């Protein structure tokens, strides 16, 4: 173990004042800035989740009042969805790694990138203000007319917070797209791009096309509350269900903003630790685009019991099945990549295995909900809660941790304990399944979501779920411990601790402020592990 100070000038030590961080235009530092805010949001969101799980250990609503409970689950989701899941991979890992991976010195518009972070922080502060003044109780979905005409909570502030944050997303998407088009190193053709970059490209598309819609929709709710516009109020001739169409037109694709970038991470890590080309590179790349495009055509699967016509329900059900196919294709390709690999069991890969297990369950249970005949019974029950946690936490958060463990040595120049990181992956996997597995059963048994109190017969499964949540919390705490410890005492990583092929591994760890001393030239695909002149397994 080495405790020597890294002597070289790198992006972390080039200047160390607070001002140098707050005014930085370095994409790597901006990635770190996002990480700090997202970690804070994740911590807050977890505290609220803990409150929810404690309340639900007993059938009676006895831990907090009904109003408090409603605020707990709403604030949990608002922080987790808009300030963790959406930015976690693109804004942290994307900002840090993507320009390195394409051999660029920075993103196309570094100042705009910093501005995006400030917009994000302002949106976050608005939402914090909503929280401090008593929170919001509408659910993160802000359904009208409850949110627009009835709720007495801080919908205005939270709605504005999410509205503002949306612009950060749009600008980041724009920035990434231009960067990927214009800043690639010589020889970095489209089909030599790492798949994480492809995934970010597809994600940017969704961010740019979808986010304005939700921003405008939430702004309409704000206007309706403030000035009584009547867009969603049936007493004024408005339509409350219109809100749901507009909201899900963004919020379904938003699921892909959350899951596409982690899918990109998985492709990187699987190829690296199998020491192989990613199986079916172009199919994996195009499936990202297919998901991004078809993801816009399935929003009404959230409205199967909200009074849409049975025929339109049929069409949206069909399209929802269709959009599952590209995700299945990716999963099969990752699995096939392992075949005849030389599989090096390191922590990032353990997180990938966790991802595959949980994402499989999340994706396949999506088929239940796409099935009209089952969705009538399952809609708005714990089955849905379990399903989307498997996708968002099992998928997006596991994928983020895979990526964080993969690029941590690059970001910090230090290695964490592989044994502890592997144990954390196991702990999170087990805790997660114990938390959300029982909720599938609860859902089919008919327990509705967002219930402060519930009938006695649902208790055993809820207790299991709460027990699982405490294991999950232990897992997340462990990650924070060994990663922070590695900053002080971690072994020096060196430029390429995983012997990976990407350009980001060709520069030092941590990279210099300008990434590369000289612009790299690319002459092969992203994952040419097998061309290395080493022993073939």
């Amino acid at each position, binding site marked *: 173990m080495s405790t020597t100070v890294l002597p070289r000038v790198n992006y972390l030590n080039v200047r160390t004042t607070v001002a140098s961080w707050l005014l930085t235009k370095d994409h790597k530092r901006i990635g770190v800035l996002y990480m700090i805010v997202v970690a804070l949001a994740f911590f807050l969101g977890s505290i609220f989740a803990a409150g929810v799980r404690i309340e639900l250990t007993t059938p009676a609503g006895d831990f907090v009042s009904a109003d408090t409970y409603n605020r707990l689950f709403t604030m949990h989701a608002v922080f987790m969805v808009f300030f963790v899941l959406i930015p976690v991979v693109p804004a942290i890992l994307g900002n840090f790694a993507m320009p390195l991976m394409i051999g660029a010195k920075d993103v196309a518009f570094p100042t705009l990138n910093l501005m995006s972070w400030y917009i994000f922080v302002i949106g976050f502060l608005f939402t914090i203000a909503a929280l401090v003044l008593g929170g919001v109780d*509408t659910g993160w979905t802000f359904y009208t007319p409850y949110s627009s005409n009835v709720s007495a909570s801080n919908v205005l502030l939270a709605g504005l917070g999410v509205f503002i944050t949306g612009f950060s997303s749009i600008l980041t998407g724009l920035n990434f797209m231009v960067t990927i088009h214009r800043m690639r190193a010589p020889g970095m053709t489209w089909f030599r791009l790492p798949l994480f970059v492809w995934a970010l490209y597809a994600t940017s598309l969704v961010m740019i096309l979808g986010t304005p819609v939700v921003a405008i929709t939430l702004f309409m709710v704000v206007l309706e509350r403030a000035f009584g516009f009547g867009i969603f109020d049936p007493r004024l001739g408005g339509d409350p269900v219109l809100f749901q169409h507009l909201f899900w037109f963004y919020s379904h694709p938003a699921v892909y903003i959350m899951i596409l970038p982690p899918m990109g991470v998985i492709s990187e890590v699987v190829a690296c630790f199998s020491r192989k080309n990613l199986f079916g590179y172009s199919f994996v790349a195009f499936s990202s685009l297919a998901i991004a495009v078809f993801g816009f055509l399935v929003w009404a699967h959230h409205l199967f019991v909200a009074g849409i016509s049975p025929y339109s329900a049929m069409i949206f059900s069909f399209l929802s099945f269709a959009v599952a196919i590209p995700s299945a294709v990716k999963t099969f390709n990752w699995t096939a990549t392992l075949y005849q690999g030389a599989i090096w069991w390191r922590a990032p890969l353990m997180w990938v295995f966790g991802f595959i297990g949980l994402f499989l369950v999340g994706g396949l249970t999506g088929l*239940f909900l796409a099935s009209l005949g089952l969705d009538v*019974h399952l809609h708005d029950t714990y089955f849905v809660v379990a399903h989307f946690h498997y996708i968002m936490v099992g998928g997006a958060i596991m994928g983020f941790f895979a990526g964080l463990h993969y690029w941590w040595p690059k970001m910090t120049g230090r290695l964490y304990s592989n044994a502890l990181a592997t144990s954390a992956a196991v702990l999170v996997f087990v805790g997660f399944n114990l938390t959300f597995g029982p909720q599938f059963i609860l859902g089919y048994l008919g327990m509705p979501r967002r219930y402060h109190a519930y009938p006695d017969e649902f208790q055993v499964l809820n207790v299991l779920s709460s027990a699982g949540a405490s294991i999950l919390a232990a897992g997340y705490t462990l990650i924070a411990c060994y990663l922070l410890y590695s900053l002080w005492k971690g072994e020096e990583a060196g430029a390429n601790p995983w012997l990976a092929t990407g350009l980001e591994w060709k520069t030092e760890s941590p990279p210099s402020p300008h990434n590369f001393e000289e612009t790299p030239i690319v002459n092969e695909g992203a994952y040419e592990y097998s061309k290395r002149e080493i022993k073939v397994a």
Partner: protein
Amino acid sequence: MLSGIPLFPEQASTLAPEVDALYFFVTAVTAFFALLVVMAVVIFAIKYRDRTGDRVGAPIIGSIGLELSWTIIPFFISMAIFGWSTVVFFHLVRAPDQTLEIYSTGKQWMWRFQHIDGQSEINELHVPLGRPVKVIFTSEDVLHSLYIPAFRVKADAIPGRYSSVWFTPTKVGEYHLFCAEYCGTKHSGMIGRVVVMEPNEHQAWLSGGGGLSMQARGEQLFQQLGCASCHLPDGSGRGPALPGRFGTQETLANGATVTVNDTYIRESILTPQMRLVAGYQPVMPTFQGQVNEEGLMSLIEYIKSLPTAGQPAAAPQAGGTAPAAAVQSGPR
């Protein structure tokens, strides 16, 4: 510890076994694929493990054949699920012609049920065994959702519209009734029970107490509110004649057509100018604020019961029946 936990809720309607069979099928298919992938990952990870980290894998870049097969096979399997589930769905949303209709309104935080004969109840719903029942409902304030897990039915209650669920109870007993759409503070308290009774006991329950039948109440309102002065039965009034009108197609002033169903009648009473039938002057005033949701439902029930010219009036029998022309797909 887990042995006491059921995996399925009670099956108490004709549709419940259908939904459960589909659920079982989808579970089996998805579990098969999940296990397939998990086993492949585990086997490959162990078989091809390399402890050194400095070997490389085989130079395989892909296979079009495999890509095509794992695109096409899952597609066909998912289409099978889609087909089956759509059939079940149409059973769930298409009520049979002859149903016992019960009206309901949801509001923060209770369900009120209004039986045609005049009985009404709160957070309890008494229904007879073995007879198709259709609950037609709306909301007075925010969104709610009427959910009876034992029957596997659910539909959102939406202010300004009518929704419906239908079921044929197959088992005497008491079942949960939930609000499934978040509606504010006491959302989890907006629950109740459905009581399935033997038909004769149900009949006895219905006739025990209760006020005016909905038809009679509707007729009363029809006179009180002055509807009768314009909607003359022979069509000579300033408004359209209403007998036999329910379930028909009408052409609107703007050229569009509309089916005269619950939702359209409700809308015509509250916002008459919104979709005016062609050939009539926009002279009808709004009745917003003068008649509550129950009153509206009674008016609709009354209008439904009006005979088509030349036909005898439907006898206001216990548990009244819907005219066959009633829109079966439920409110739009």
